[in-house]
C-alpha cells in the first residue's frame, strides 16, 4: 500500500508539472488524458462486464454537442450562432465562457448517463455479437442523424466558443490540460474505488456466466445498466472537454467518429489488457505515442497502419500487455502459484 502511495504521488506531481516541463506538448497531453478516460471507462463494461460495445462513441459525441450547445445557448441564440459559422458575431466574456463551460460539462456528463439508463434496458438485453453490432449501428446512426439537424450546424459543423483572452498566451492550453487531467484523476479515483467493491465482482460474474449469475440471485440487468451508465458519465465528460479542446465539432469526423475514436477506445483497452485497472492506462499511453508518431511521419498512411495494427493486436496479442505480464509474473498480481505447477509448465514448454 505504501509503495502504491508513493507511485500515485509521483504520477500526480508529474501530471501537475507536465505542462510546464513540456510546454509544446500541452494539447497532446490533454488528448492523452481524454484517451485514458475513454479507455478506462470502456473497460468497465467492455472488460469487466464482457459487453463489448462499439457505441460508447454515442455518449462521447452527445457530451461534445451538449457541452458546446449549452455554452453557447446560455448567453446567445444557438441558431444564429451556428448560422454565422466561424464569423464570430457573438463574443463570450471570460466569465460567460467559464460559467458556460462549467454548466455545459455538468449537462454533458448527466444527459448521456440518463440516455444510457433509458436505452440500457432494451439494448443490454442483447448478447455477444448482437450487442456489438447494435451499438455500432447506434453510434453511426447518431452521427448520420446529427449531421442532418440544422440547429447544431448540420453538415457544416459547429464552432465552439473561442477561449477568451485572459492571462498569457499559454492560458488556453493550460486550462484544458488541467481540466482534462482533473477529469482523469476523478475517473481514476472513481474506477479504483468501484473495482474494490462487490460491484466489480458482480460485473465479473456477468462476464463469466450471465445465466449463472442470474441464477445466483443477482439482478444482472440492474447492474449492467449501472455499469453502462458509469461508462456514459465519463464518456460524456471527456467528449465535452474534447469539444472545447478541438474548437470545432463535425458530426461524423469529430463527434460521432466511430472510425477513429470509437475504435481507439476499444483498441487501447485491448492493447493494455482488458479487465485490469492499469491496462487501459498503459495501453492508451503507448497507443497515443504510436499514433502521434504515425500521424506525423506517415501522414496519409495512418489509417492503413491503424487497420493493420487492429488486425495484428487482435490476432496475436488479444490478452494485452497486462495479461501478458500476469501470465509471466503471476505472484506480482497476488496469485499464489504452486512451485510444482511452475516446474511442470516449464517442462511442458
Amino acid at each position, binding site marked *: 500500500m505504501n509503495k502504491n502511495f508513493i507511485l500515485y504521488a509521483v504520477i500526480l506531481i508529474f501530471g501537475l508539472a507536465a505542462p510546464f516541463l513540456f510546454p509544446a506538448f500541452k494539447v497532446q497531453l490533454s488528448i492523452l488524458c481524454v484517451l485514458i478516460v475513454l479507455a478506462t471507462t470502456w473497460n468497465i463494461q467492455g472488460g469487466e462486464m464482457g459487453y*463489448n460495445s*462499439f457505441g460508447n462513441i454515442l455518449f462521447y459525441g452527445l457530451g461534445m454537442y451538449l457541452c458546446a450547445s449549452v455554452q453557447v445557448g446560455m448567453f446567445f441564440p444557438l441558431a444564429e450562432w451556428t448560422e454565422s459559422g466561424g464569423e464570430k458575431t457573438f463574443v463570450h466574456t471570460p466569465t460567460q465562457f467559464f460559467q458556460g463551460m462549467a454548466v455545459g460539462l455538468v449537462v454533458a456528463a448527466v444527459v448521456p448517463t440518463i440516455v444510457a439508463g433509458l436505452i440500457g434496458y*432494451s*439494448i443490454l*438485453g*442483447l448478447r*455477444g*455479437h*448482437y450487442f*456489438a*453490432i*447494435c451499438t*455500432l*449501428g*447506434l453510434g*453511426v*446512426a447518431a*452521427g*448520420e*442523424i446529427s*449531421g*442532418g439537424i440544422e440547429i447544431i450546424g*448540420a*453538415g457544416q459543423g459547429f464552432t465552439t466558443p473561442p477561449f477568451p483572452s485572459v492571462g498569457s498566451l499559454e492560458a488556453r492550453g493550460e486550462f484544458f490540460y488541467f481540466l482534462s487531467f482533473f477529469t482523469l484523476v476523478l475517473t481514476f479515483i472513481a474506477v479504483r474505488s468501484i473495482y474494490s467493491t462487490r460491484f466489480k465482482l458482480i460485473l465479473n460474474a456477468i462476464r463469466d456466466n450471465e445465466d449463472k449469475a442470474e441464477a445466483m440471485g443477482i439482478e444482472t440487468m440492474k447492474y449492467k445498466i449501472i455499469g453502462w451508465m458509469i461508462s456514459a458519465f465519463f464518456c460524456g465528460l471527456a467528449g465535452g472537454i474534447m469539444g472545447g479542446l478541438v474548437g470545432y465539432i463535425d458530426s461524423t469526423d469529430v463527434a460521432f467518429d466511430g*472510425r477513429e475514436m470509437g*475504435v481507439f477506445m*476499444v483498441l487501447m483497452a*485491448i492493447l493494455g489488457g482488458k479487465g485490469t485497472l492499469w491496462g487501459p492506462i498503459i495501453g492508451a499511453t503507448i497507443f497515443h505515442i504510436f499514433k502521434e508518431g504515425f500521424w506525423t511521419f506517415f501522414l*496519409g*498512411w495512418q*489509417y*492503413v497502419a*491503424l*487497420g*493493420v*495494427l*487492429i*488486425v495484428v493486436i*487482435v*490476432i496475436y496479442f*488479444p490478452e494485452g500487455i497486462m495479461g501478458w505480464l500476469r501470465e509471466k509474473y503471476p505472484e506480482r498480481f497476488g496469485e499464489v502459484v504452486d512451485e510444482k505447477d511452475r516446474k511442470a509448465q516449464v517442462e511442458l514448454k
Partner: protein
Amino acid sequence: MDFLVFQYPMITVQACLDGILLGVLFALIAYGMALQWGVMNIINIAQGDLVILGGYIAYFMYLYGIHPAWGVIVAPVIMYFVGIAIYKLVINKVVDRDLFISILATFGISILFMQLMNFAFGADVVLANSGYGTTMLFDSNVVLPNSKIFSAFISILFAACLVIYMKKSKLGRAIRATAQNARAAKILGVDTEKVYAATFGINAALCGVAGALISITFTIHPYMGLPYTIRSFMIVIVAGLGNLPGVAMSGMGLGVFEEFADYILGTEFRIGSVFLLLVLILVYRRFKLSRKREYLK
C-alpha cells in the same frame, strides 16, 4: 415533400419498384453474409468494403473502354482470390476464437480496405455508365433505368446458380455439412480448412458481383462500405440463417423501406434511418426472445 407520397400514388409505385430492384442487390450481399455466418460463425464487417472493391473493378473496366457489364464476370473471379487471401492471412486465425475478436479483426480489415481504396481510386463519388437507357411505365409516370432491371436480373441469376451449386456439387455439400456440424464433417473426411477458404472466397465473389452491379446502377465511394455491411447483417437476422426466400423477401422489404425513408425524411437521413432500423429490429428481437424465455419459466 412530406405528403407527396400520398398525393401522387405514382411516386409510391416508383418507390416500391425502385426499392424492390435495390433490395434484390441487398439480398445477394446478405446471402454471402449468411453463408459465411452459417459456416464459419463469423460476422464480416468488411463485407461492404468487398462490395465497393468489386464496384471499383467494374469502374476501372469502364475507364479502360470495356463495357462495365463485363465486370459481372471479371469482378467475382478477382474477388474470389482476394477473399481467399484475406482468409489465409487473417480469418483462419480467428475462426475458432471469441466472436468479438473476429468482429474487431474484420473491422480492422474494413478500415484498411477503405483507406487503400481511398489512396488507389481517390475520394470521388464515381459511377460506371452502362448506357442502357430507361424504361417508362404507366404513361411515363414511372421511370425505371434499364440498368436496375439488368442488375436485379443478374443478381437473381447468380443467386440461383449458387443455390444449385450448393445442392449438387461436392464442395457445396461439404460446405453445407460443415455448416451443420464442423466436427462431424471433419471426422467424415471433409477438409474444413479448405471449405472455410472456399466459403470466404465465394462470399467475396458474391460481393464482387453485387459491387459491379452497384457501380453500374448507383454510385460507389471508398467510405460507403459500412452501410452495406449493416444492411446485410440486418437482412440476415430478420430472415434467419439458411432461409433463402426469407433473405430475398427481407432484402426487398429493406429496399422499399429505404426508398420511402428517402422520400419522406429526405436523403440526408437515409443512412441514419437504416442504422436506426437495425437498432429497432435488434431491440424488438430482444423483447420477443425474452418473452419466450419468461414463458418457459
